[in-house]
């Protein structure tokens, strides 16, 4: 144990300033960092709306927002400013250049410009603009058919709701701006240090920054408390990387140190580039005492960084406020829109066409009527002067009906959708079951526009490290000399004391090993390029490092040769068991057998195993070998082969020490989550930069791959052709007929369909998995192979893509989005996942240890992978169901409402006469029917969360968008037509022959209006009552309250007082009293309701009975169980049996051995204290 752990454990290098980010995260996509860095005080609401010219979104600004005006102004200034000149400590000079001060402004409005600017922005939304145009149409007396207020009042309400929301957002931004601008900072002024506010800092000022303080502006580092003017900073807020970075000042300024006199007399002139958003680029020249010094980005502290491990430093302010690189990078993000948004736009277009068609029919009807009847009716109602013929009249009527039927396009649709999404996002933020106590983080819906898409996810693209796993390696067990030891207890069974030392290793595996060794009393203290200092049970020993036999994928092992203090030359080797077994000395065969058994046990527990062996080499052999080694290293031809030959010479006849088992801890509940998601037919792909072995191991551990799978394909071709063959081979096995010419997909593809086309779903003959590495993927993603890849890959249940670059991750997501009509979700935690998070329909960030990069770019942030199932199956599903119910109902109620005018046209000479009182038209959408549908779409649950999680199959309808699509929309239309038909003709026919008991007729227009609108409201209320499955008190209040409220308003609007005051506005005096006390009116209403609702109930009741979908069967079972609460079915426990997979699952990279022995990383030996940091 003793030797083994020390020997293996001291191998990893501890980087001087702690490259804390694990090696597999070293693959970072540079441009991601540049484009996506955002300030941390940005709120999710701050996503500025940005649009694409290629499509005109209906509900969002099609013109740039006012923000862009501001931006363009500042851009103008920048384009003028080619080079920036400034002089330290010279405010007079610097002020002549007109640089902005350090105030930042993320707010968009001020008190004065709020109203005009906000209105201006809102009218750029097509929906609002439409209603504005409608309003102008209404003001034209020739075609006006509705009072102006029928449009103005709803429009005002919609606008003010949005305005209030914008105002609240902006107030938050103002508060944040104020908070930031008023932070205090120390400024050097005339030889003294003065405290000032951030916003008063100006270009050319010299400021003092202290440890753990955020940097105020972009400053040129002058001097610091550390030697050589070094300063350590953390850039997590800027680019998401948590590792410390070092900045160094030029020597001439570092000599200023903290001498205030020198600092305030420092008059260096800086000439540098104009402000830009490139975080890793800065060029400039400092002129001081007649000499020029070049400046680069290593000398610039950027705003948003935090000073670490440095007591103080002084800096010269270069860029302030809006010119800082942070602000230059801030605030722009692409706006994701859901499938539902696109569908709505299409449907609104349909409605427009439908509307146009109806208006056309009615206009023609009007023309005919005027010709046949209206012409002769002129005795009673002469035509207007401008109407010369029935054709003119018909044209005018077209527009009149366009105004009347405008409610087909529902004005409050978009604002309601926004409210619903906002509400459902709040539920995510409020969910205690997605709150992660250890990190004190609740789930966070950073976007409030994608909710229903959470209920439609078909593909999940997941990162591995930090997402599926915790990215924590723990030394769990070991087998030494044939005996298994558990972790955490010493030989006396006492719990070992954990010291404070924290290592920052290049791979977490090695970190785990070194940490374990430390805990057992073998403390790795420091290293140079030639020595390793270890404190062994309190006794300091220095090992001479002779050579490192580096790791490679082929060797799957690495060794180190050291000279012990006792002057013995020892080789220690650790590696994959399969490899190491063959290198062992025959004498340890029995030990090997025992150890192999132990390895089986370890693998059974899902641990990552390593074998450790040693060899004692005599000095002469080593010298000879060393010579060969140097020769091999220097050779020009076949160097790799020669080196590995030399290595092989050394790594033989090894004596087995034992094996280690490291637990790559999965996050809690990951396998269960994946099983649940699989049941919901969500396909999970792992896209990782990690190695294949590791990825596959994890895939098995978390049930993405299962033992009982029918086959797992590995695509690792190194060129076009092999990749194609491998893909086709895989497909042949999964679905042999898919290779035939006669396959429908093939015939479809042979027709060379126009982009964008969709590839239909193909069903394989079993459960398959596929592994593809990044290298092959690069070929597969090329034009002619991408369809091959897509078809093969989509048939697999689980897919592992390893060795992926961030860009490839995004490409895979894009590929899926391009050819499949599916919703994709990407989940990840690191900066390398940002690209795919942004590319996918929904990006989920795991708030983990790796900075905030992923989180800042995500749409939803959760702290554990297992919350994903709740996010999708509970919140997503509910949101989707609610949205669909909402839309169905919303369209239905508006159709039923509007189409009544159409029927009435045939009985009113097509004269654009409305059926209803104008006040009813004004209030219908806004007051009478808005609250019930809001309560439906905020509170409804078809089944509770327990059932949604227990029966993931319930998620299925969302994936195929079964609850609201074009077909459902047509159903709504048909239902609306039917309802309006019933609601018009039943009252019409019944009222026709009916009189009051005292002989007064009741078929006058106003009574009829009242009757029809009351019946309509009753029908739509009963309809929503049927749609609501989850009746809370609020639903009752909203639903029945709205109906009651209608009657209250009715009696108010038709009251004597109001009508006497405004006789020409409120004309319906006394109608409510005279009509609603007639029993036949109520009978008509009942009959209409019965006739409208009966078919709906019948359809809903009979459909699951005769044509049950899978969901209906499950619902039936659930209903059965809820009614007879016997023992609910227990969830099958997950089995953790898995065969042994030998794993050299190191997230290692080749080449570190050479790095260490070269001593390059050791140049800062002076700062030993930084080779490890103490836990705070």
């Amino acid at each position: 144990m003793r030797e083994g752990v020390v020997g293996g454990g001291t191998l990893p290098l501890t980087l001087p300033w702690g490259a804390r980010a694990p090696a597999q995260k070293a693959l970072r996509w540079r441009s991601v960092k540049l484009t996506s860095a955002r300030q941390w005080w940005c709120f999710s609401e701050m996503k500025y709306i940005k649009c694409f010219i290629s499509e005109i979104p209906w509900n969002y600004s099609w013109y740039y927002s006012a923000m862009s005006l501001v931006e363009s102004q500042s851009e103008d200034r920048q384009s003028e400013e080619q080079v920036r000149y400034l002089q330290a400590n010279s405010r007079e000079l610097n002020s002549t250049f007109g640089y902005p001060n350090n105030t930042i402004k993320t707010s968009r409005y001020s008190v004065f410009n709020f109203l005009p600017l906000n209105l201006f922005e809102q009218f750029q939304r097509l929906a609002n603009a439409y209603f504005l145009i409608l309003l102008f149409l209404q003001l034209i007396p020739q075609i006006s058919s509705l009072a102006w207020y029928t449009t103005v009042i709803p429009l005002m309400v919609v606008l003010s709701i949005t305005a209030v929301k914008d105002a609240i957002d902006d107030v938050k931004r103002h508060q944040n701006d104020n908070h930031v601008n008023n932070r205090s900072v120390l400024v050097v002024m005339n030889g003294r240090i003065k405290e000032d506010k951030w916003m008063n800092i100006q270009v050319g000022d010299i400021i003092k920054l202290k440890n753990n303080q955020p940097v105020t502006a972009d400053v040129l580092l002058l001097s610091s408390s550390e030697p050589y003017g070094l300063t350590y900073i953390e850039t997590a807020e800027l680019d998401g990387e948590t590792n410390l970075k070092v900045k160094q000042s030029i020597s001439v300024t570092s000599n200023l140190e903290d001498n205030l006199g020198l600092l305030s007399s420092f008059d260096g002139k800086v000439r540098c580039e104009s402000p830009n958003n490139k975080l890793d680029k800065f060029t400039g020249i400092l002129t001081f005492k007649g000499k020029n010094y070049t400046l680069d980005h290593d000398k610039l502290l950027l705003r948003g960084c935090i000073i670490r491990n440095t007591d103080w430093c002084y800096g010269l302010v270069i860029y302030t406020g809006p010119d800082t690189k942070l602000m230059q990078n801030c605030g722009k993000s692409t706006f994701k829109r859901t499938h539902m948004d696109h569908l709505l736009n299409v449907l609104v277009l349909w409605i427009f066409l439908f509307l146009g068609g109806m208006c056309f029919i009615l206009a023609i009807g009007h023309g005919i009527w005027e010709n046949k009847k209206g012409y002769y009716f002129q005795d009673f109602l002469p035509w207007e002067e401008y109407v010369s013929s029935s054709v003119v009249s018909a044209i005018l009527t077209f527009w009149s009906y366009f105004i009347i039927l405008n409610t087909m396009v529902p004005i409050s649709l978009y604002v309601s959708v926004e409210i619903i999404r906002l509400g459902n996002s709040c539920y995510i933020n409020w969910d205690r079951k997605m709150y992660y106590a250890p990190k004190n983080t609740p789930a966070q819906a950073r976007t409030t526009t994608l909710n229903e898409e959470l209920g439609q996810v078909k593909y999940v693209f997941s990162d591995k490290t930090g997402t599926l796993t915790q990215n924590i390696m723990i030394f769990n067990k070991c087998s030494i000399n044939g005996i298994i030891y558990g972790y955490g207890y010493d030989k006396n069974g006492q719990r070992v004391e954990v010291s404070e030392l924290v290592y920052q290793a290049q791979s977490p595996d090695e970190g785990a090993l070194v940490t374990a060794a430390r805990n057992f009393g073998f403390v790795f203290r420091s290293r140079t390029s030639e020595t390793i200092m270890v404190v062994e049970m309190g006794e300091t020993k220095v090992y001479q490092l002779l050579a490192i036999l580096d790791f490679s994928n082929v060797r799957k092992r690495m060794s180190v040769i050291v000279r012990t203090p006792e002057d013995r030359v020892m080789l220690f080797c650790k590696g994959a068991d399969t490899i190491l077994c063959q290198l062992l000395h025959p004498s340890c065969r029995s030990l090997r057998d025992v150890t192999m058994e132990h390895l089986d046990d370890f693998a059974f527990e899902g641990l990552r195993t390593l074998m450790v062996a040693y060899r004692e080499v005599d000095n002469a052999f080593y010298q000879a070998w060393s010579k060969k080694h140097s020769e091999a290293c220097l050779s020009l031809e076949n160097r790799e082969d020669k080196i590995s030959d030399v290595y092989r010479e050394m790594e033989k006849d090894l004596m087995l020490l034992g094996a280690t088992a490291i637990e790559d801890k999965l996050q809690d509940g990951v396998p269960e989550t994946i099983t649940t998601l699989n049941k919901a037919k969500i396909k999970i792909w792992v896209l990782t930069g990690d190695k294949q072995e590791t990825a596959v191991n994890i895939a098995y551990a978390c049930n993405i791959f299962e033992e009982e799978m029918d086959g797992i394909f590995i695509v690792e071709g190194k060129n076009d052709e092999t990749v194609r063959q491998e893909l086709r081979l895989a497909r042949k096995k999964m679905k042999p007929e898919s290779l035939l010419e006669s396959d429908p997909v093939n015939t479809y593809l042979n027709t060379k369909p126009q982009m964008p086309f969709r590839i239909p779903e193909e069903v394989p003959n079993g459960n398959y998995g596929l592994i593809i590495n990044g290298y092959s993927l690069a070929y597969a993603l090329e034009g002619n192979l991408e369809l091959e890849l897509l078809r093969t890959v989509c048939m697999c249940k689980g897919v592992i893509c390893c060795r992926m670059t961030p860009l490839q991750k995004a490409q895979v997501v894009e590929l899926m989005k391009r050819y499949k009509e599916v919703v994709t979700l990407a989940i990840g935690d690191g900066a390398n996942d940002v690209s795919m998070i942004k590319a996918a329909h929904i990006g989920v960030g795991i708030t983990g240890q790796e900075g905030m990069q992923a989180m800042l770019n995500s749409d939803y942030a959760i702290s554990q992978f297992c919350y994903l199932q709740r996010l999708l199956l509970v919140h997503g599903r509910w949101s989707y169901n609610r949205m669909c119910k909402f839309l169905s109902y919303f369209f239905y109620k508006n159709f039923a409402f509007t189409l009544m005018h159409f029927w009435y046209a045939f009985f009113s000479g097509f004269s654009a006469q409305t059926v209803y009182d104008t006040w009813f038209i004004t209030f219908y959408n806004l007051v009478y029917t808005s609250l019930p549908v809001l309560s439906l779409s905020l509170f409804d649950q078809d089944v509770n969360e327990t059932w949604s999680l227990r029966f993931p199959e319930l998620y299925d309808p969302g994936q195929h968008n079964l609850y609201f699509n074009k077909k459902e929309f047509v159903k709504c239309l048909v239902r609306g037509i039917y309802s309006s038909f019933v609601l018009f003709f039943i009252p019409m026919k019944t009222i026709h022959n009916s009189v009051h008991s005292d002989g007064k007729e009741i078929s006058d227009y106003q009574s009829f209006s009242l009757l029809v609108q009351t019946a309509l409201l009753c029908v739509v209320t009963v309809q929503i009552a049927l749609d609501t499955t989850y009746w809370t008190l609020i639903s009752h209040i909203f639903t029945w309250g709205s109906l009651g409220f209608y009657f209250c308003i009715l009696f108010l609007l038709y009251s004597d007082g109001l009508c006497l005051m405004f006789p020409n506005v409120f004309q319906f005096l006394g109608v409510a009293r005279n009509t609603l006390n007639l029993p036949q009116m109520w009978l008509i209403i009942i009959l209409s309701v019965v006739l409208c609702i009966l078919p709906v109930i019948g359809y809903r009741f009979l459909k699951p009975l005769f044509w049950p979908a899978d969901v209906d069967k499950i619902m039936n079972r659930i209903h059965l169980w809820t009614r007879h609460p016997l023992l609910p079915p227990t969830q099958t426990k997950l089995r953790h049996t898995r065969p042994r997979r030998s794993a050299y699952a190191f997230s290692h990279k080749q080449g570190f051995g050479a790095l260490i022995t070269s001593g390059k990383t050791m140049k800062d030996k002076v700062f030993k204290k930084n080779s490890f940091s103490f836990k705070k």
Partner: protein
Amino acid sequence: MKRTSEESQSRLPDNSALKQQQLPAYWLQLTATGVLSGFFATGVFCLGVGIILILSAKSIKEIEIKYTKICGNCAKLREDATNFDKECTCSIPFYLSETMQGNVYMYYKLYGFYQNLYRYILSRSNSQLMGTDLKDVGTCAPFSKSHDGTPIAPCGAIANSIFNDTIILSYNLNSSIPIEVPMLRSGITWWTDKYVKFRNPRSKNLSIAFAGTTKPPSWAKPVYELDQEDPENNGFLNDDFIVWMRAAAFPTFKKLYRRLNRIQYFTEGLPAGLAYTVTGAVTWLAFFSMMAIHLMLKDRKMFFTEQ
């Protein structure tokens, strides 16, 4: 490490039923028993109501006499607009096979007269009809002012096109002596119309009150001469006028014209067996509107049948 002040307070969301979506609620399910029982209950209800309504409707008797064709010569006369003030009468005898017991109402019914046209229905001034502002004729186009600019009272297309046929029902007790059936011209409007919505301008003398206004172009006499016998039925308060002003919803409509005054022979209703004559003093007629007189007994309810 950072912002420790924020981290010290827990961000655990509230445990309220609303925020956790755990509000106590009732689950509505379409169960077989629920749906079927609801279905049958509705059926039984509708059936019951339907039977009651059919039975009650049986006691209602209705006679409709169309006089457009019979009074064809009058219709012809009216085709020429200049003859609007010429009187034209015609009578139609009919036979009542059985007694109409109870209250009897007389309606006039117009076919194809579009009282619901958009511009027609707007063409009135409620403030004028309320007597508050006689000069307020802004909404009355195209009948707001006469050629010389005098405001019309009552203004608007509705008022201008008032139905002003005079219908007299005579009862031939003996074959020679017709008795005019006594009819009431009051109580045929809504209370709210007669007492709230329509008011004459305040003045002792109506003709003075309406000074400064002129009669609608199609009217034979000004509004204050509509019923000179009964001041309560004159001016805007004229029942026939109020009835007409309540525009009908459909082009074919009937409006209450007179009620039977149950005195003398008619205390029981209209006696059967003998011939009646309807004499219409047709002063106004358009050839395309069919007109008819309805005689109805009691009321007639809609039919309600089981679906």
